[in-house]
């Protein structure tokens, strides 16, 4: 491997249909096993919350959406046929619910939305071992992240969902297509447009 080889972090997620464990968990939940239902939520709650946060850009909205998503998951469990993995299925519900919610919410609360830049500036979460003693670099990174966050929130929802699922959640094109309910070709074009817009922001920063 050459030094300039691009190493892409890929999340360790198995997507090839529902596994035995997934299927057993779903069956237990479907018959009202509360322990199984609790396990289903705890196993997926961080994934759901973070995706909701990245799609909506607001923590409280993401938390509310997480509850809605799991309620919908339980309502729709009898329809789960195991054609995709349980995670894919839940991802799709998150995206659908977020798409429905962001239309009205963003219109109403845009002025009140707290940007990540503000959040980072206030808390300085980006400090790490490399940044210690280098406050200028830390500030620069914080500003960059804040701008990209703002730009991300300005993207059309479909493009935002595609780039979040790819870059943050590390899904393959096929998995993104399944989660968004669109062909792989559409995923490619959405990703290309999203990257184009975000790169402009990065270049300016």
């Amino acid at each position, binding site marked *: 491997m050459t030094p300039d080889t691009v190493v892409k972090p890929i999340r360790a997620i198995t997507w090839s249909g529902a596994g035995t464990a997934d299927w057993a968990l779903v069956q237990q939940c479907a018959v009202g096993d509360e322990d199984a239902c609790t396990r289903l939520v705890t196993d997926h709650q961080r994934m759901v919350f973070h995706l909701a946060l990245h799609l909506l850009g607001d923590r409280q909205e993401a938390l509310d959406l997480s509850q809605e998503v799991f309620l919908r998951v339980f*309502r729709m469990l009898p329809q789960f046929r195991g054609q995709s993995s349980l995670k894919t299925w839940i991802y799709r519900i998150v995206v659908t619910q977020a798409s429905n919610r962001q239309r009205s919410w963003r219109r109403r609360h845009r002025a009140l939305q707290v940007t990540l830049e503000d959040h980072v500036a206030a808390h300085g979460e980006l400090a790490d071992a490399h940044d210690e003693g280098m406050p200028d670099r830390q500030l620069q990174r914080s500003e960059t992240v804040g701008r990209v966050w703002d730009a991300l929130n300005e993207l059309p929802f479909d493009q935002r969902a595609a780039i979040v699922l790819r870059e943050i959640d590390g899904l393959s*094109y096929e998995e993104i297509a399944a989660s968004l309910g669109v062909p792989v070709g559409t995923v490619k074009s959405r990703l290309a447009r999203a990257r184009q817009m975000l790169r402009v922001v990065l270049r300016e920063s």
Partner: protein
Amino acid sequence: MRSDGCTAIRDRLGLFVDGELTGAERLEVRHHLDRCEECTGELGALDALGDTLRMIAEVAAPHTPDLAGLAAGVVSRSRAEADLSWRAWFGRASGDWQWLIVGAGSIAATVTSALLVSAILAFGPEPERRDSLAGIITDLQSAGVVLAYAAPLTLEQDIVLLSSDDGEPRRVHAAIDRNSPAYWPAVEAHLVEELVWTVNRSRTGARWDDGDPTDRLIQEALLEEITRLRLAEPMMVGRPTSTNVAVSSAIRWRSTGGLP
């Protein structure tokens, strides 16, 4: 300088970064990047974008709210929703099978009753009229009813039955309940009394032909008048209603009947 080759490669850089190219395509892009600084810069920009986006996730991660209560809340709400659903209601009813049987039995009984009543109304006999023969018999058998009645035995014979409160036919003088004036308006009671008197006077038995012709005319007139009065008044419970039959029969009163 940017060439056509660069344009083709850059169109695929996103796929290259995402690991979505085939082995041959990936090798082609790799070879181009080895000799094109501009496209390599483009690749770096794409990588930087990805890194920045992943940094967003890193920023948010430490501030993930406490999700410990999420599962309990969701499971509780989900169970409450399920309890309200019709499917759950049906499941409970199925589990409690005796109530299912009671419910099914009630429905079956209701349907059967409705069908029976409908069949009776559609195919059954007409309701009994009080001035019909069956109604008259019913009245005759009703306690406390005093009734003058004539029923044909044959085409030529009519019989006068005078019933008392025990439902048994009696002689005329025993048939009229004089102690029940409430049923009989004064005029009507008087006429009935006259009728009874003339019948008893004119014959010892019940043979009409044995009676005096004058008395017979008087009796017919009395019966007609009694009938007129009774038909003119509103029907009363327990009131004789078949005098009209008696009158019509009395006109063609020709023979005797063996009054008891």
